[in-house]
């Protein structure tokens, strides 16, 4: 049974209606005459003539509409969400509540440091804790997402080589399994991308790496555990080869959750890393952000960190800026990045503490290996059957696609009917018909068993009634959508005539 769809907010709109409790009070007295003077000074040519199409609706209609829309979503709070490489763990409510204390919310970004010692002390301690768990020398909290952190990282690598007069180094090596943001970032930094293959067991192809490095190598971007869900075992050799050729090592922290408290990028030889605080440190994904992509560096890259950075002087804290860090790659945001997200990560880290932090990697890995073992036993094919799962693993539906004409996409869509969000599909690109499954440590065994049961049931349907899977899902607000039409007949805004349709 399909749920009832919610009409557009514009269909609630009536001329002259509004949520008037939200309007500022009518202007009286001094401010009214000030208004006349101020408005009177604006020439007609600079003024708006037409009314913008914003809803004119009552407060209740607006509340009801957006509450109903929310109910059409899957979310961590409502559904198991084993989206590989995204670390959809529980977002503790305390992190939200205490990051939204009125003093934090009302603090202006340009308020002096003396009016923000509470906030700055949290940011300083967050920098210190992130250094500790990653083994890096210094941290900057500015980047506002993982890809933004990648940008900062590669920009620092470029700045480092330039500062040494090593101007030819403009190539970034990326394993073919990397996230799309890696090559896109290298391009944004004005670099050339060189992709190298991985071997049959999912490790970097060392011979290919040796051939790829040279006097033009700026660095290599690696995710470890990799996007294939396995730990890169030859990491020390990779580090030796790249460093030996004069390049630097960039750690994509997308999968940091797998190794939290077990092994640190700094100890593996990485020079620069970004962390997705919205993955490992449990800040919310928000339906597409905000994230936070703090960067950590080794000593030689510290001068290049994006500003501002929090420094401690005596008992107090202050922002260090371009004046303190003349070699900085500069500013990445108008102010200091996603402060509210950083507060949530701080609260999460303080709640977990030393022991809780070490358990994250352990239980994320336990859950992944458990689901992997049971799915393998149930007849699913693993992409890397000889390897341990990290915090995630890949199954491939290549065999079923050939024998039963059932694809990874069909499985993913059918899972929605069973109340589970789909795993990541068709990524990494080099494993055909793949599902990348990441359960996270916050899920109970019962939830994992429920997911496994659903997967087994769907595999059964694949054999008995493949056509049923092809048309899934059946119970969502909509059935499968026509993506081709969406891209060809662009309907990117709502038009009044639509309501008649």
């Amino acid at each position: 049974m399909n749920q009832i769809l919610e009409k557009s907010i514009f269909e609630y709109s009536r001329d002259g209606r509004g949520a008037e409790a939200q309007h500022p009070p009518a202007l009286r007295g001094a401010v009214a005459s000030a208004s006349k003077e101020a408005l009177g000074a604006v020439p007609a040519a600079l003024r708006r003539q037409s009314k913008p199409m914003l809803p004119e609706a009552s407060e209740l209609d607006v509340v009801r509409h957006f509450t109903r829309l929310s109910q059409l979503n899957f979310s961590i709070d409502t559904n198991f969400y084993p989206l590989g490489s995204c670390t959809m763990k529980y977002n503790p409510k305390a992190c939200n509540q205490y990051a939204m204390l009125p003093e934090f919310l009302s603090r202006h970004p340009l308020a002096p440091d003396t009016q923000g010692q509470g906030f700055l002390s949290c940011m300083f301690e967050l920098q210190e804790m992130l250094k500790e768990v990653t083994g890096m020398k210094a941290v900057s909290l500015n980047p506002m997402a993982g890809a933004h952190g990648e940008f900062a990282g590669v920009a620092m690598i470029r700045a480092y080589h330039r500062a040494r007069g090593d101007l030819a180094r403009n190539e970034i090596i990326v394993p073919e399994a990397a996230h799309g943001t890696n090559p896109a970032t290298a391009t944004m930094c004005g670099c050339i991308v060189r992709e190298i293959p991985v071997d049959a067991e999912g490790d970097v192809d060392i011979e290919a790496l040796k051939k790829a490095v040279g006097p033009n190598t700026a660095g290599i971007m690696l995710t470890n555990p990799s996007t294939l869900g396995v730990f890169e075992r030859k990491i020390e050799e990779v580090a030796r080869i790249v460093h030996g050729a004069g390049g630097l090592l960039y750690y994509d922290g997308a999968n940091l959750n797998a190794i939290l408290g077990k092994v640190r990028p700094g100890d593996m030889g990485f020079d620069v890393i970004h962390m997705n605080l919205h993955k490992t440190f449990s800040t919310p994904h928000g339906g597409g952000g905000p994230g936070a992509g703090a960067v950590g560096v080794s000593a030689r890259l510290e001068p290049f960190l994006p500003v501002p950075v929090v420094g401690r002087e005596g008992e107090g804290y202050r922002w260090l800026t371009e004046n303190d860090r003349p070699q900085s790659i500069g500013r990445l945001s108008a102010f200091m990045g996603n402060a509210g997200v950083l507060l949530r990560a701080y609260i999460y880290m303080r709640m977990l503490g030393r022991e809780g932090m070490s358990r994250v990697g352990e239980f994320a890995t336990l859950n992944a290996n458990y689901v992997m073992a049971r799915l393998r036993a149930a007849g699913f094919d693993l992409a890397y059957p000889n390897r341990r799962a990290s915090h995630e693993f890949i199954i491939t539906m290549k065999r079923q696609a050939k024998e039963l004409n059932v694809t990874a996409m069909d499985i993913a869509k059918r899972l929605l009917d069973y109340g589970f969000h789909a795993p990541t599909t068709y990524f990494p690109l080099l494993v055909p018909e793949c599902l990348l499954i990441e359960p996270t440590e916050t899920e109970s065994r019962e939830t994992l068993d429920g997911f496994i049961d659903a997967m087994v049931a769907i595999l059964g349907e694949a054999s008995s009634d493949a056509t049923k899977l092809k048309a899934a899902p059946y119970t969502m607000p909509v059935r499968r959508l026509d993506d081709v039409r969406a891209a060809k007949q662009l309907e990117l805004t709502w038009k009044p005539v639509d309501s008649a349709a």
Partner: protein
Amino acid sequence: MPFIPHTEADVREMLATIGAKSIEELFDEIPQNLRVQGLAGIPEGLSEMEIGRLMSERARQDGRPLSFLGAGAYEHHIPSAVWAITTRGEYYSAYTPYQAEASQGTLQLIHEYQTMISSLTGMEVSNASLYDGGSAVAEAALMAVRAHRKSKSLRVLVPSTVNPNYRRVAVSTAGNQGLRFETVPYQRETGCIDFAALAAFAGQDIAAMVIQQPNFFGQLEDVDALTDWAHEQGMLVIAAVNPTSLALLKPPGEWGTKGADICVGEGQPLGVPLSSGGPYFGFMTTRMEYVRSMPGRIVGRTVDLEGRHGYTLTLQAREQHIRRGKATSNICTNQGLLMTAATIYMSLIGPAGLAQVAETSMARTHQLVTALGRQRGVRQAFTGPRFHESVLLLDRPAEAVLRELESQGILGGVDLSGDYPELGSAILVCATETKTDGDIERYANALGTALQAVRAA
């Protein structure tokens, strides 16, 4: 164990299923010499009660001074419903809506947002958000260079009336791809772009020009003339605007004869708290002809198997997860939740409410500037129309005066001496609809006292 639900029996049985003796064994592929021994630098964990106490103490330290700061982040009333709904788990804890069937709420909301922000800016299409106002200017510059059909130039004009931090972000973001940002001075009388200085760029091959309205000083630029001039020179026009102001001011889509080509801005004024600088969101709208050059997520409406309307991410071939090294940008996660808050804010405040917010802010700033201007040693830097900010010149060093004000619990303005030393002692002040007659009077009296104290020192 905080946030980990496993019992000892669970662990035992799960390990048996895996065929491992211990959790430790699951890490046997990691070289032993790399393993970390404890995290000595991390403090002991805290219960929710303890962290609540700690955070409340930290927050209290920061207090809530009376603030007249603006310069790109503005204090506005935020309806209670905005964050009550935005923090519902179904929005707060959902991922980017790749699985459309399980994300219709977020997708329809983005589509409604695209509709509202396109209309507010007078443009045809919008994306689903960028990081913030500064990064949006940087992305717009990259997009203009990419989208320009006749010029291969990497030069972009960014007048000195554009927020200095936006200019910094543009350089650090787009400089690596060879973009060159060139400034245009402002006229000392009006605080607006100096037309005479623009003449030096006439006839040159330049990809785009950024016009901020209201500009960084709060002054209103002659956007029609500037847009037409830039178009005559073959440049694309990037408008950087304050969304609140658009309830009163001409939308970029109507600037000059043809309208601006790309419009960006800081979305914070639309229901997003100041929060020390973020998370905010950048908005970007453009003409339909440039939609394929736009970075970021875009939602389109389509139909499902049964012919019913539904929403999905579209034009994904522009994006990094498909196009990798050839994508329009590396942007992936953006600022979805803030765009959600802004959509609910715009729905509640409506066109009339937004106009009242804009009008009241303008009036309060006018009142403030008049009241402060009555103090000895204070005068306005510029003449001409403005929105809700203004530059005041002081006869004593701004830094010392602001410090005096701070000791009276007032954040009196942003010191401009670093970015605009030629102005001398200058502060940028702002008042919005949140300020009362009493607040303004309090500031005016405090400024008199502060100036006196600095003179005496």
